[in-house]
């Protein structure tokens, strides 16, 4: 018997506005109206500025470890721009730009990295899930959220973001498999930023693209220039329309680059060349849009100066709101574990500043009982 072909495929790559300013009229014309393009540019500038502010906050001891988003603004922003406001945006931690576009308050993100859970109490109308630290696990939640919407007869999809490193986690593969087999419309977006802390993307996949990871799960797959806002918008539109219409998932690899360190606790100079970073700086997603707008006379120095002034003021206000939030009650973390605090946990809460943590004071010897009483009175006064 002759050998036949069981399956054949190819991966398309989309680039519309490249770093040299070349613009593909066929794909890009009318894709983003000029008025929107200006707003999207402003959003990227504001996000980049806040990223720098957050970095300085960390360095001056006003914020904990922070993962910079620098260089990856066009990926999540392109998606958030295309998605409907009530589609789920299920992100990791380098999607600030998309979240801010969605309306998530800047102080929500700042508070999270300032070690305050209240930053994650994002109002549900934003349809954005909280920052997920367990790597590569949130894509399953995207599938579940969308399944719930589908079951309720809602025309709602999810778009979930994760990195090249996260695509090595088992949950990523399970999420792709579940979404595909159970027909759940999720747009999977792999942000390939080349580095998972110090692990180069080739250690996370030996295949030529990350996009082809979706093939194994029967999804249409696409690779795009992730530093090209036009391309990320184009791809998300294609993918979301497909997902909505067919009730099936779609896979996009957005090729971008992490210009900063992994987090403020990392020093990328230990493992990557400055020449590589410099090359990618020349492909910056923000500069690219700015040059395009200047060439088309949509933007000029005066507008840029006015924008920067506004951004500085807005971001300073956001920092101020985050830093000036009333301190949480010292027993706050007990009360958030369950809808009702179990009786035993309530005892731990109420004795947290005394030595008797959960014990029965009546079991103490008389002298110790007196000391316990004093400690508890002191704690109450404190």
């Amino acid at each position, binding site marked *: 018997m002759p050998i036949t072909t069981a399956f054949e495929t190819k991966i398309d790559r989309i680039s519309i506005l490249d770093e040299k300013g070349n613009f593909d009229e066929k794909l890009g014309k009318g894709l983003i109206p000029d008025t929107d393009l200006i707003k999207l540019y402003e959003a990227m500038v504001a996000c980049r500025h806040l990223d720098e502010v957050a970095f300085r906050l960390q360095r001056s001891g006003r914020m904990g470890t922070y993962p910079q988003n620098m260089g990856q603004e066009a990926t999540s922003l392109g998606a958030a721009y295309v998605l409907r406001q009530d589609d789920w945006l299920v992100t990791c931690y380098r999607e600030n730009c998309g979240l801010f576009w969605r309306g998530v308050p800047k102080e929500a993100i700042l508070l999270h990295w300032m070690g305050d859970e209240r930053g994650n109490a994002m109002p*549900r109308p934003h349809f954005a899930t909280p920052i997920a630290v367990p790597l590569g*696990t949130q894509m*399953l939640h995207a599938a*579940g959220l969308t399944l719930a919407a589908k079951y*309720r007869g809602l025309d709602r999809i999810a778009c979930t973001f994760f990195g090249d490193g996260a695509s090595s986690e088992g949950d990523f593969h399970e999420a792709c498999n579940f979404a595909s087999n159970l027909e759940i419309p999720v747009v999977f977006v792999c942000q390939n930023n080349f580095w998972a802390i110090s692990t180069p993307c080739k250690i996370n996949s030996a295949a030529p693209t990350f996009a082809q990871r979706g093939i194994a799960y029967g999804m249409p797959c696409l690779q795009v220039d992730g530093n090209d806002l036009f391309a990320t918008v184009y791809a998300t539109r294609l993918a979301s329309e497909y997902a909505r219409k067919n009730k099936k998932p779609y896979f996009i690899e957005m090729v971008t680059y992490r210009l900063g360190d992994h987090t403020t606790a990392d020093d990328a100079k230990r493992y990557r060349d400055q020449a590589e970073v410099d090359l990618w700086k020349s492909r910056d997603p923000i500069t690219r849009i700015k040059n395009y707008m200047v060439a088309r006379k949509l933007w000029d120095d005066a507008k840029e100066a006015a924008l920067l002034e506004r951004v500085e003021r807005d971001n300073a206000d956001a920092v101020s709101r985050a830093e000036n939030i009333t301190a949480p009650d010292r027993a706050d973390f007990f009360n958030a574990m369950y809808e009702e605090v*179990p009786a035993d946990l309530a005892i731990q809460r109420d004795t947290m500043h005394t030595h008797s943590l959960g014990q029965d004071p009546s079991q103490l010897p008389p002298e110790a009982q007196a000391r316990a009483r004093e400690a508890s009175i002191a704690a109450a006064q404190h």
Partner: protein
Amino acid sequence: MANLNLVQAINLALIQEMEKNDGILLLGEDIGVNGGVFRVTEGLQKRFGGERVFDTPLAESGIIGLSIGMAMGGLHPVPEIQFEGFLGPAYDQLCSHAARMRSRTRGAYTVPMTVRVPVGGGIHAPELHSDSPEAIYAHTPGLKVVMPSSPYDAKGLLVSCLREPDPVLFFEPKRIYRAFREEVPEDEYTLPLGKARVVCEGTDLTIVSWGASVVQCMQAIEKSNRSIELIDLRTIYPFDVDAVAESVSKTGRCVVVHEAPLTCGFGAEISSRIMERCFLQLEAPVQRVAGFDTTMPYYKLELDYLPDAHRVTRAIEDCLAY
């Protein structure tokens, strides 16, 4: 009233709650057409349709992760993990997400979900089909852990779980799935989570146990001529420390019985709490009858591993000798 075994009682609870709440969806491996490997979900797909009772790919982390999303999206998923030994792959989703979502978001997102898991040994099953990992999950703040010991309790506790706003692990002791029947009301009733049951009252000694071991304890008590009080925890977490403390303060003696390994088993916590709450009333050190700090042996030797009435009797005698 119907005379039901544990499997039938759970099945009935699922049917009745699913009829009341269309947000309850069942998912897992082989739970649909096949009705689950223990037939607990028998007939439910036919009754409620493939949208509400569906088979998933063979991936436990995926099952729990998907369920978390469903719960965050407003449903009450009831994932089945086929055997407790397969909880391992789902550990990250359970403990890093389900248990933490409410706390992480200060209540903006919650995970109302009932994870059904057959648990424990004694049915001559292969490796990783006979373990008792309840202490691991009782040690994970944010989860609730329930284990019934009878058909009546199973129905009442499961109904409570299905109305819970927080994630619950509902462990079903497979050794007593079909071991006996009892009267189970068809009418609605609930048993509160976090409340233990006094199975029989006594004045000389307290036994604390849960799940299938309760049956072994009853056998030992029936053979004893002393007045022994048996407490079935029903819920491992929240732990009903008051019920235990009250009983042990009365009897002054306590034996804890569980299938799980001794070290860091939930008996260790119970023993410690008794020290804190009943030290002045204790007549004897707390005794523990438990599985051993070994891997659960293959089934030829599983009865040597599991606490039985004989070992419980010895512990009762030792404790009373002080």
